[in-house]
C-alpha cells in the first residue's frame, strides 16, 4: 500500500469528474501532468468506479500537430502542481500560437504552491501548500508514479510486452550479454526499473548518414511489474544523438527513412508541412528511430534465446495498456510507432526452432563503472550527483535577489557528450543521469546548445521549481574547497568515549 497522506488518488477522481468531459482535449504537461490521467484511472479501478474516457495529448507533441488542429477544441492544460506558473503559461502560449481559441482553454492542477501568483482555473477550491508540504506532496506523487509501468520521462515511445513465465532474474541474465545493467531509483514501488547501457558501435547503419552523430551511448530502460503470474514489461529505447537538421535533410533524410522502414519522404514531408518549425519534430523522429533500431537489434538477439528456453513473450498493443486513456498522436507519430510495432511483432512471431543454443553475436560492452574512477570527490553525497556541478559551471541555476533564491529560468542545458568530456565513463554517466532524472533534480528535453552548434541534441537541465535550489545546494557541496581536515585520532577518541572500544 502506498502512502496516502495527501489523498492524491481521491483528488484526481474529483478533478476529472468535475471538470473533464469526453469532449475535452487534455494536454498533459511533461513530466508529471502526463501521469495524472493514469493515476485517475487506477484510482477509479481501486474504488470500483468505471473511469471516463480521457483524450490526452502529451505537451511535448503540441507543435507536432498541424496548425488549426486545436482550433475550436475545448482544451484543458493539466499539471500536477503550480510553482510559479511559467510552464503552464508557456504551454498556453504555444497553443494560442497554434490557433487554439483562448476562450476554450482552461488550466488545472492538483496543488498550488502557496507563494505562487499563478492561479489555475481548476479546481475552483484550490489546494494550496506551503513549500515543505509542497515538496512532501511531490514526493508522494512521485511514489505513485514509481508504481506505474510508464517511465517518469514521457517523451519517448513506449513498447509494451508481457510474459507468463519469464522470471526477472532470467531476463537480467540474458541482458548482461548486451551491455551494462543497473537499477534505477530505490525500492519505492512494485515496479523494478532496470537500465541497460549499450555501446553505440552495436548499431551499425550500413550507409553514410550525414548530419547525424549517433552519440556515445544507447540505453534501454525496462520497467518490469509482476501482476499475478504475468510479468509486464515496458521497454524504452533512448539515445543521445546530435543532428544538424539542415544537413541531414539535404543529404540523408530519405536514406535514413528507408532504413527505418518508413516511406523515404517521411522526414521531408514533415519539413514541407511545418517548415523551419519542423526541426524539433525531425530530431524527435530521427533520435527515437535510432533508438528503436537498437531495440530492434536487441530483440533479434534476445528473442531466440527466450524462445529457446521455452518462455513465451509477446508484444502488447498500447491500447490494451492505456485502458480508457485515449492518446491522441499526430499522424506522423502513429506511422512511426506502428512501423516499429509491426517490426517487433514480426521478430516475436518467428517460430524457428533452434536445435542448439543460438550463437550470440558478440556485442561490445561499455566499460563498467566502479567507485574508484578518478573523478571521485570526497563527499558524503553519492558521486552520481557530482554531474550537477557541470550545470552550474556556466550559469547558476538560482540567483539571489537579496531576500531569497530564485530559480534561473534561462539555464543552458548540457549534452551527454559534454558530460562525457569531464566524467569519462559512459556507464557512470548513464547511471547518474537516470538517478538525477528520476529524482527530479534534472529534466531532459530535445533542444539546442552552443555545443551542438545549431544542431539538436538531448539536453539536460535543472529540474525547475525548488529543484533548482536543491541542485545548487548539491553543486555547492561538490565545489566546496575547505581548509578543514579532521584528525582521525580525535574522531577515534570521540567514538571510544561515547561507545567504548567494542561497539
Amino acid at each position, binding site marked *: 500500500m502506498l502512502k496516502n497522506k495527501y489523498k492524491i488518488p481521491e483528488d484526481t477522481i474529483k478533478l476529472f469528474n468535475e471538470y473533464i468531459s469526453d469532449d475535452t482535449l487534455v494536454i498533459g504537461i511533461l513530466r508529471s501532468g502526463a501521469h495524472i490521467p493514469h493515476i485517475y484511472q487506477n484510482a477509479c479501478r481501486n474504488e470500483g468506479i468505471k473511469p471516463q474516457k480521457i483524450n490526452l495529448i502529451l505537451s511535448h507533441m503540441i507543435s507536432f500537430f498541424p496548425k488549426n488542429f486545436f482550433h475550436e477544441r475545448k482544451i484543458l492544460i493539466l499539471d500536477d502542481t503550480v510553482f510559479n506558473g511559467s510552464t503552464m503559461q508557456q504551454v498556453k502560449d504555444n497553443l494560442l500560437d497554434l490557433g487554439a481559441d483562448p476562450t476554450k482553454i482552461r488550466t488545472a492542477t492538483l496543488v498550488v504552491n502557496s507563494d505562487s501568483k499563478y492561479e489555475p482555473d481548476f479546481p475552483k477550491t484550490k489546494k494550496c501548500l506551503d513549500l515543505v508540504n509542497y515538496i512532501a506532496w511531490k514526493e508522494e506523487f512521485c511514489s505513485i508514479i514509481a508504481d506505474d509501468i510508464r517511465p517518469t520521462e514521457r517523451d519517448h515511445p513506449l513498447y509494451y510486452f508481457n510474459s507468463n513465465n519469464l522470471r526477472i532474474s532470467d531476463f537480467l541474465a540474458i541482458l548482461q550479454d548486451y551491455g551494462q545493467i543497473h537499477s534505477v531509483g530505490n525500492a519505492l514501488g512494485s515496479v523494478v526499473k532496470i537500465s541497460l547501457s549499450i555501446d553505440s558501435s552495436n548499431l551499425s547503419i550500413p550507409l553514410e548518414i550525414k548530419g547525424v552523430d549517433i552519440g556515445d551511448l544507447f540505453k534501454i530502460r525496462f520497467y518490469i511489474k509482476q501482476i499475478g503470474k504475468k510479468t509486464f514489461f515496458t521497454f524504452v529505447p533512448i539515445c543521445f544523438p546530435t543532428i544538424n537538421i539542415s544537413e541531414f535533410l539535404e543529404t540523408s533524410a530519405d536514406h535514413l527513412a528507408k532504413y527505418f522502414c518508413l516511406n523515404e519522404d517521411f522526414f521531408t514531408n514533415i519539413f514541407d508541412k511545418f517548415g523551419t518549425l519542423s526541426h524539433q519534430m525531425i530530431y524527435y523522429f530521427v533520435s527515437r528511430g535510432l533508438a528503436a533500431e537498437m531495440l530492434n537489434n536487441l530483440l533479434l538477439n534476445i528473442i531466440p534465446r527466450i524462445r529457446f528456453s521455452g518462455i513465451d513473450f509477446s508484444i502488447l498493443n498500447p491500447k490494451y495498456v492505456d485502458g480508457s486513456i485515449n492518446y491522441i498522436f499526430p499522424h506522423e507519430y502513429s506511422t512511426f510507432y506502428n512501423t516499429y510495432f509491426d517490426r517487433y511483432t514480426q521478430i516475436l512471431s518467428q517460430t524457428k526452432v533452434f536445435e542448439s543454443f543460438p550463437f550470440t553475436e558478440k556485442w561490445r560492452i561499455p566499460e563498467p563503472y566502479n567507485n574508484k574512477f578518478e573523478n571521485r570527490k570526497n563527499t558524503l553525497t553519492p558521486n552520481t550527483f557530482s554531474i550537477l556541478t557541470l550545470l552550474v559551471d556556466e550559469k547558476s541555476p538560482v540567483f539571489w535577489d537579496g531576500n531569497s533564491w530564485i530559480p534561473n529560468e534561462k539555464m543552458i542545458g548540457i549534452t551527454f557528450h559534454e558530460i562525457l568530456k569531464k566524467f569519462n565513463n559512459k556507464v557512470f554517466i548513464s547511471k547518474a543521469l537516470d538517478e538525477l532524472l528520476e529524482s*527530479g533534480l534534472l529534466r531532459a528535453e530535445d533542444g539546442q546548445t552552443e555545443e551542438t552548434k545549431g544542431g539538436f541534441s538531448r539536453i539536460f537541465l535543472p529540474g525547475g521549481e525548488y529543484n533548482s535550489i536543491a541542485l545548487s545546494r548539491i553543486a555547492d557541496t561538490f565545489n566546496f574547497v*575547505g581548509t578543514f581536515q579532521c584528525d582521525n585520532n580525535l574522531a577515534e577518541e570521540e567514538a571510544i568515549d561515547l561507545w567504548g572500544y567494542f561497539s
Partner: protein
Amino acid sequence: MIYGVISHKQELILEDRTSFFINYAGSVIQNELHIEKYGVSTRKLYKVLANVIIDWHWLSKINFQEYNFSGAGELVWIPHRFGGIQQIVPSVAYTGIKKSHELFVNILDLIGFPEYSKYGIRGVIENNGQRHILFPTSISYKLMKKTRVEDNERYHWGNLIKIYSKLPDSTLDSLASCRTITLCLQCLWIQFVMWKYYLNSLLTSIINNDDPFSENNKSKIKYFYSSSSACIKQLFVKLNYYNNINSSIEELQEISKNTEYQRNIPCNFELNSMQFNKANLEIFQACTSILESLHEICTQFINLNHIMNDYEEVDFTLLEDSLDIMINKTQLSSTLFDINQWITIFLGKDNEKEIAIKLLTLINIIFNHFENKLGLQFNPPNLHYKSFLENQYPLPKLHFIDGN
C-alpha cells in the same frame, strides 16, 4: 505496509537539515558563551541539542500553529550512559563511515565532509580530554536561505539553543535525562543494559583467554570494570536528578523568563503509548540497589586479581552483605547466594575462570529477575538501541513531515 523508504532526494534534504541544525547550534552556543576561540565540546553540544530536540518535538506537537516545525532532521534523543544525549541516525547509506551499534554516526566523522564543513567549521581541538568543534563564527543569511530549514524553524532553533546553552552542565544533564518519568526510566534502563554488557564482556574475556591477565587483556578488563562502575554511579545521579527535577526546571525558567518560551519550556509531556509509569520507577530503584550489590561482588573479584591500580584487598564482609541484600530483595533462592561457595572459590588458587563463570551465571539470574519485575528486556546495546528507536521513542514524531 506503507512504503516507508524515502527517496534519495528526501535523504539529501534530511542530511541538509541535519548539518544546518548542528552548525547553527554550534555557532549560536559559541556566540552566546563567547567561546569562539575554544569551540564547543561535543559533550556540551550533545546535551544542549538533547534538550532542544525534546522541546522541538513537543512544541510543534502541542501548538502547531505557533511552532510549525517540519522535523528534527536526523537528530535523535537517545538514553546513553552519559544520560540523555543527541545523536545522528543518518538516512543516507554512507560508505566508509563506521556506525556505532549499526545506528549512530560519529559527528567528528561527518564534519570533515563538505556537507557539514561548508558552513565554515574551522577545526577540532582537544581540551581537557574532550573534543571541541570550532564551529563557524557566523553563517550568512544568504547561505541559510539555501538550506531546507524554513525561516521560522531557524528562528526558534537558534533561540532554544541560546537558552539551553546558558545552563550549567549538571542542569543540562538533568533536564536532558530526567525531565519526565519516561526519560528518566529510559536513562536508568540503559545503565542496566550497559552494565550487563560491560560485565559480560569483562567476564567473557577472562573465560575465553588462555592468559586472562596479560597486559593486553588486563587493560580491557580495567576498561570494562571502570565503565560498569560509572553505570552504577550514574544510576544514583539520575535518580537524584529526577527527585530534584523541579530545581532544574526553575533554573531553566529563570533563564527563559523574558523570552516567548517562558511558559512553554521545558516541555515535560508524556506519550500516552509509553508503558512506563511511577510504579516502575520504584521497581527500578529497588533493582538499582540489587545491581549495586551485584557490582560489589564483581568489585571483590576485581580486587582479588589486583586488576585496578588502586585495588583493595578482598573484603569478605562486603561480599556477604551483598549476597544478603540480593537474597532479601529478590526472594530468589539459589546456591549461588551461598557465601561459603564464594569464600571457597575466592580463596582457591587459579580459580579466576571458575569465579568468572559463576559470576556470569549470577548475573543472568539477577537480570532474569529484573526482566520479570520490570517487564523489560536487557539486550546487548545494538539490539536495545534498535528497539528503542523503532518501538520506544519517547517523543512524538508522526506530526512531522517525511523527509524533514
